[in-house]
């Protein structure tokens, strides 16, 4: 009696198991669908809990979307760091082999430097201000200072300075370019980290007009073009431009000193200058 019931149990369970295993075997043969092999690899690294925590219907679907580039690895709340790292290798994130690209803010017209034209009462967003006359700053090209770029950065690599200009944290910036897209004024540009010389201004107005607008504006005087390596600096629409193809390590003569308004900057020198300045201030 007892043994019989054990046998019945084993038989019925075993029967069901065999039945469905066979079904799966057949299905595996007949219903097989070709897919990107990486999907399988990624899927096998995912928790497989199908918990839906990622907002997607299941781990397999998450893998598909990941490989398809529609979602980030961080979208899976369950996955641990190890698995994430491995998945990243499968996904070949070595795409970032080239030089690190970071965002650069090409405007120095903060609250202190720029001219105000009135009292702006409206939505404090750069796009909104841009399309309704440009907020309270007179400059038509420069940073508006409402930090839309800061909000758009998914990595928290940007913040607003007290002077009302965005500051990039080079180490955190991944070069994703979200801020560049967000800025209605095109003030942010993406550059390899090795580029340190910039014309930090976008103002194309005539010298007379741009002088009225900002003390750090590029007024288009053309002094910087002379004396530097041929072609490195050019003037276009009252604005100095740097040809980064010609810009290299051997470039000795720098146009920064020539610029009458300090619109051209060399990043390291700026920081050095600043520390000297601070030291002097402290002495006074």
């Amino acid at each position, binding site marked *: 009696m007892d043994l019989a019931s054990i046998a019945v149990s084993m038989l019925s369970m075993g029967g069901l*198991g065999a039945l469905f295993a066979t079904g799966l075997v057949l299905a595996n043969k007949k219903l097989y669908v070709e897919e990107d092999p990486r999907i399988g690899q990624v899927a096998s690294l995912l928790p497989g*809990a199908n918990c839906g*925590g990622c907002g997607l219907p299941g781990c397999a679907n998450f893998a598909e979307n990941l490989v398809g580039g529609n979602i980030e690895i961080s979208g899976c*709340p369950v996955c641990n760091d*190890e698995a994430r790292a*491995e998945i990243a290798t499968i996904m070949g994130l070595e795409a970032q082999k080239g030089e690190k690209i970071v965002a650069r803010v090409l405007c120095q017209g903060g609250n202190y430097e720029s001219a105000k034209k009135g009292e702006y009462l409206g939505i404090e967003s750069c796009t909104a201000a841009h399309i309704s006359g440009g907020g309270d700053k007179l400059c038509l090209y420069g940073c508006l200072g409402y930090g839309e770029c800061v909000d758009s950065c998914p990595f928290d690599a940007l913040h607003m300075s007290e002077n009302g200009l965005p500051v990039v944290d080079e180490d955190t910036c991944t070069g994703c370019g979200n801020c560049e897209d967000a800025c209605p004024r095109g003030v942010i540009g993406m550059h390899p980290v090795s580029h340190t010389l910039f014309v930090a201004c976008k103002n194309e107005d005539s010298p007379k007009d741009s002088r009225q607008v900002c003390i750090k504006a590029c007024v288009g005087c053309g002094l910087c073009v002379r004396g530097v390596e041929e072609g490195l600096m050019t003037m276009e629409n009252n604005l100095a431009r740097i040809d980064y193809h010609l810009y290299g390590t051997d470039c000795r003569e720098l146009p920064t000193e020539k610029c009458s308004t300090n619109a051209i900057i060399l990043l390291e020198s700026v920081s050095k200058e600043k520390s000297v300045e601070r030291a002097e201030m402290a002495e006074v």
Partner: protein
Amino acid sequence: MAKPVSLKAEFVKGLWNENPVMASLLGLCPTLAVTNAAVNGLAMGLATTFVLLTSTLMISTMRNLVPHQVRIAGYIVIIATFVTVADRFLAAFFPEISATLGPYIPLIVVNCLILGRQEAFSSRNPVGRSLVDSLGMGLGFIMVLIVLGSIREILGSGSIFGVTVLGDWFSPWMVMILPPGAFLTLGILIALVNWINSRRIAA
């Protein structure tokens, strides 16, 4: 797989950082359903941990044998087996608890927490490490269940583990032992954990 992580870290992660309920939002159904009293939470937590450990033992042992295509079916049968064992154990030895936890014991079978750990960890790691992981996860789960159960029991019945703590002046908020109370308490608890985490990061 991967760089060696200390066993201690493997254990500790389940308690807070990768806590199955708070961080991964797994196993929510039993978490909500049985925590109307602390003791129920404890019992459910223990039962779940038992199943987690035993099935981990099995699955981790035979992790290299089971073909990918039948692993879900295989794992889940193993899990269900131990759930049945636990269920019967309670029915045979603790009939009262069995009656209160009622239909939620069998649902341990489909507790995403268990299958999730098997898929994510036990099927890829040696037995010892897997057991440590499961133990951590199980304890993390028990912890949450007890906390949730205690809060709900105190506010909903004025007692904790059946011992009256709030006097007659307190009229219990019955909602706390009803479904809405479960959701609300867990919601607030999750927010609290987020807050603590953000403080920890800031610090």
